[in-house]
């Protein structure tokens, strides 16, 4: 192997991506903390952020805004990364983190928990997490041995199985909604649209469960590049294909389940963020993994910030904004790339 300089061309690009998106994330974090629905001025927020200002402002920033900004960041990072992994594993541009039925499973869990009168934490959270884990178990059982899993991926069996799973869960969800009472229905709908507003500081450590998955996915960036060439080619280049696929599948589903159980179903982030960076940076997962992680986090913080600021009867569910902003943005990028 020939020796390389410390910063080759790729190293410089990686550093650039991390630096730019890292700054963007830091900026969104500060902005997310400094502004909010109480219409206190940005200056007030800024002052309180550095220890000045009233005690009410301090409570708002550290007890109310901080948990939700950190939740938004983690959810954004997780979903964007989850989408990236599934798009690579399933070799399908329409794949997103919920594609294996995670959303349906966790929704059934969460809604059942609400109808049974569980407390929102830990009751509904645990029910939601169990629901998605049950779906993962069913998917893995259906695909059976890792050899069959490989075949299943190449023949889109895994993908179709997941789609069916979500369709089935969708029907169960509609049924549960139809038998719910008015007050429960509100709670259910807000969960289905995604909700950051009830996050507390005490629950923040739970989000750390996603971090080992981030690392695991990061070290598999190169195998993911090779998997894009097809399972046979990847195996030929020394990738333990089946093991890698199962590992990534389980890690991704696990981290997505963690964030969904805390925030409900936030749509579209996982689909669009990886595509945006693919258009901007090319297909190399060694760049796409950190880019999706940091970019997804910033994107959801900004969407949540807008959701808090836009006037509505109450607060606008953030899931509306992710697609409302993301879809036109992506169409613009596609159009520009074609030109």
């Amino acid at each position, binding site marked *: 192997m020939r020796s390389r300089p410390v910063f080759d061309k790729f190293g410089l690009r990686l550093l650039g991506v991390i630096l730019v998106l890292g700054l963007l994330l830091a900026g969104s974090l500060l902005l997310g903390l400094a502004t*909010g*629905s*109480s*219409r*206190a001025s940005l200056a007030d927020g800024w002052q309180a952020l550095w220890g000045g200002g009233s005690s*009410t402002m301090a*409570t*708002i920033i550290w*007890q*109310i*805004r901080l948990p939700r900004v950190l939740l938004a960041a983690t959810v954004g990072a997780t979903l964007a990364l989850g989408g990236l992994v599934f798009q690579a594993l399933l070799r399908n541009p329409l794949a997103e983190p919920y594609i294996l039925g995670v959303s349906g499973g966790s929704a059934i869990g969460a809604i059942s928990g609400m109808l049974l009168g569980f*407390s*929102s*934490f830990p009751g509904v959270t645990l029910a939601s997490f169990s629901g998605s884990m049950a779906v993962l178990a069913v998917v893995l059982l259906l695909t059976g041995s890792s050899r069959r899993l490989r075949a299943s991926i190449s023949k889109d069996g895994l993908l179709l199985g997941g789609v069916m799973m979500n369709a089935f869960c969708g029907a169960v969800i509609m049924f549960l909604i139809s038998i719910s*009472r*008015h*007050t429960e229905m*509100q*709670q259910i709908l*807000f969960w289905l649209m995604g909700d950051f*507003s*009830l996050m*507390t500081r005490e629950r923040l450590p739970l989000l750390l469960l996603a971090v080992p998955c981030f690392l695991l996915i990061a070290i598999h960036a190169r195998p993911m590049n090779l998997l894009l060439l097809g399972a046979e080619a990847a195996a030929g280049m020394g990738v333990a294909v089946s093991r890698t696929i199962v590992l990534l599948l389980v890690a991704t589903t696990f981290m997505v389940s963690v964030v969904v159980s805390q925030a409900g179903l936030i749509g579209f982030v996982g689909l669009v963020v990886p595509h945006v960076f693919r258009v901007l940076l090319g297909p190399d997962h060694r760049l796409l993994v950190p880019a999706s992680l940091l970019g997804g986090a910033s994107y959801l913080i900004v969407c949540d910030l807008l959701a*808090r600021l836009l006037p509505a*009867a*109450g*607060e606008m569910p953030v899931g509306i904004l992710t697609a409302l902003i993301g879809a036109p943005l992506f169409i613009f990028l596609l159009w520009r790339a074609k030109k």
Partner: protein
Amino acid sequence: MVFFAKTFFWAAFVLLVASIQQAGARQLVDQAGRLCTVPDEPLRVVALAPSITEVIYDLGEQQRLVGATEYSNYPDEAKKLPRVGSYVRLDLERIVALRPDLCIAIKDGNPKQVVDRLEDLGIPVFVIHPQNLDQVVQVVEILGDLLGAKARGLELAASMRRRIDGVRQRVAARRHSPSVFFQIAESPLVAVGTRTFIHELISMAGGTNATAGAEPYPRYNWEEILLLDPEVVVITTMVGNPPADRLTAPWRQWPELRAVVKERLHIVSADLFNRPSPRLVDGLEALAPLLHPEFFPKEATP
């Protein structure tokens, strides 16, 4: 011994500090069965549901109100209050920013998680949970006491009870309680079950709820309605205030229905029926003449 003396001293000290902190505040059990510490003189109150805002205005204590929820539209003045989200989707940050010394919440509707978080942030929350008309009247007394308007609360409650008894006495001599279909939504058709305020109002006004049952807000289709064949149909006004003809048109498609034959399709204002506020009594007084016009000669209609 020294240890016990020290312990005793510390315990006494802690109790003393606690009692000093309690000065200007008192402990009450709210209607949700929670023990809460409320200020003797709440000065910055946020009402977490439109019905609570209405009660506070009725008590004449609106100067204490610093915030209300969306749709707090009665009386007109209440529309100017700063908003803290809708009662099912409260905006925690806006509530905290108003620096309330008391929030008044309603158990049916306000999310429990938000109430818990307000308490965690040191804001006392008093929860009301009226489940029948009698308890709505009690809420007026309780909130009167809570907001330093005890006399006004008792007086208002007494007047509500008098008006309710007035309606009851008028319809007491009835020989027949007409069956009533109370439509609260048109598409899908939704009526009211047994455990609702409206069911109670129908009974008090001398009617029989045709859709009584365990489900609070049951859905109906026309097939079921033709079988029910109610004698009176009461329709609440809807968003956008469509004209009366528009609201009764779906019913007129079925000329064989008793309510259509006898022209007993009536429109009432939804605001008088869908909130557990003192206006339910207005609702009762509006409903009774529709069910028993014989006891309410036109000129004496309240």
